[in-house]
């Protein structure tokens, strides 16, 4: 099986996917989480495997059977509801985040769906004196065409560190 080539940058599907990811990042950085949830399909799978350091040629570089995230819509809604309460202390005061999205490649897979790969650098600053956190990750998304435009149906986040250097994942990637 040969790897399909990504769509040319001028392809309208690629441009639509690119715009989707940029607009999504803007919602996340504005902490508009209800707006973000509206971009997801009801059957969303939101995954972030735990990376591990293994020898070259070892079968896997992720922990089997356990991720940082493995979410369906119920779990994501609960997270968003929680952040909207007055008692989600870890985000009060809120983090200042910037989602840098780049290296976007779009693949036409099945009709009505696009597979989109991107690189993400999340900058997260908390408080006035603490050192800021950086999380670098690759993402593989499945975007589905719906009556309301493109929606995110699946995201797999491949984080580049085995030991994360941020106090928690009260943020979305």
């Amino acid at each position: 099986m040969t790897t399909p080539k990504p769509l040319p940058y001028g392809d309208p599907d690629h441009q639509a996917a690119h715009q989707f990811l940029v607009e999504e990042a803007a919602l996340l950085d504005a902490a508009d989480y209800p707006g973000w949830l509206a971009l997801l399909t009801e059957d969303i799978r939101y995954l972030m495997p735990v990376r591990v350091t293994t020898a070259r040629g070892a079968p896997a570089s992720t922990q089997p059977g356990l991720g940082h995230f493995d979410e369906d819509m119920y779990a994501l809604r609960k997270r968003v509801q929680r952040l909207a309460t007055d008692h989600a202390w870890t985000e009060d005061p809120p983090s200042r985040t910037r989602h840098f999205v780049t290296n976007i490649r779009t693949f036409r897979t099945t009709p009505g769906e696009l597979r989109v790969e991107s690189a993400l650098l999340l900058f997260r600053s908390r408080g006035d004196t603490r050192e800021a956190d950086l999380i670098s990750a690759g993402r593989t998304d499945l975007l589905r065409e719906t009556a309301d435009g493109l929606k995110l149906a699946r995201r797999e986040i491949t984080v580049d560190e085995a030991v994360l250097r941020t106090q928690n994942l009260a943020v979305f990637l």
Partner: protein
Amino acid sequence: MIDVAAVVSQVRRGMIPAHVYGDPEIFALERDRLFARSWVFLAHESEIPDPGDYVVRRVLTDSFIVVRDEAGQIRVMFNMCLHRGMQVCRAELGNASHFRCPYHAWTYRNDGRLAGLPFHEDAYGGEDGFARAGQRLLPAPAMDTYRGLIFVSLDAGAPPLKNYLGDFAFYLDFYVNQSPAGIELRGPQRWRVKSNWKIGAENFAGDSYHTPHTHASVVEIGLFREPKASKRKEGALYQAGPGAGTTYKLPPGGDFAGQLRYVGYPDEMIPALTQAWSDRQRALVADSGFMVSAATLFPNLSLVHNWPQIDEHGTVRPFISLRQWQPISATETEVLSWFAVDAAAPEEFKRDSYKAYLMCFGISGMFEQDDVENWVSITDMATGSMARRLNLNSRMGLTADGKPVKPPIADFAGPGVAYQGFGEYGQRHWLSQWSDHLEREPATPPATDLGAAR
């Protein structure tokens, strides 16, 4: 130079000099007097099921390879080549028959024996110059297991693990002995937080008092079937052997099976749970009416058991997590958080329980998120000079003259002592052991040398 006796005497009266949560001198004492002696959890046998399977774990900065050798025996070996000190294994998990040092290619079998030494004849004059036979990677000074949990101690004279666990084993079993198959451990998630390692360990040992406020948000969003935070004060806080923990009060009138169903165990698991737990363990659930929740085994292994609603239909499912507070410095901790589940549980239960875990604990868990925010803030404040002028009050549950506000629960089915309601009994129990270690002079174990001049 720090006055250990003065610090410890404050701690023993329930007043904690605030700087102990951010003081490099205290951290050095913990390294030399506590972690140099205590049993420390490293891994579970289910993480290395087959010959050659290994994980690499640390006790502070000391890296150990935890491996199942070709004969199926668990070995724990210091991850340092005998020759020039290179790590012989730089992956964190995998399967290997041998570990070869990348520096000069000294090669060790997975039971630790030195198998390959390049140019043995030319470089050393063969066996006569340097006896290869009998050399092996340094084993952990002491290694022992309990129900598949692998512990090491850097003190060769450590008591047998079972003696150390003592009465806490009774409570540990609720988490790690749910059927004859034992648990399977998945993970860990690993992340570093700017928090002193003691804060998490103490919290899990008995801080039911923080739940109503710190964790108000998860109750507000209906993650639990009942307003759980305020229920916290009805739970029992127990201290037993080297451990302490919290429980929840179960609804009145339930029999053993009914209480297990209440916390979300499916009917298929109930026969095995009934068999796995002793009469006395079942009595804690059925007669005393308590179900274990958070706990800490001194020094830095914590456990948690909780039962959220995992879908919009209100399905309740319990989960178990083991977590380790791995000290990095006085102000930084690496958290290792595993998901644990009965290895014989139905696949559907494992899936549901995993979901329950991820929603509540681990780096993304909605409980854990708010805990760590508090602990980072405490640590940040503990490093300055004002923290040396403040003794934090850890006397909850005691009157000014040192008597318990309430007597212990008289008919509590478990060993040790237990109190109902809020109180820092568990934290003081933990700190008392911490004090015992810090007061003792450090040992100076002999060095191993090999192939030295005769």
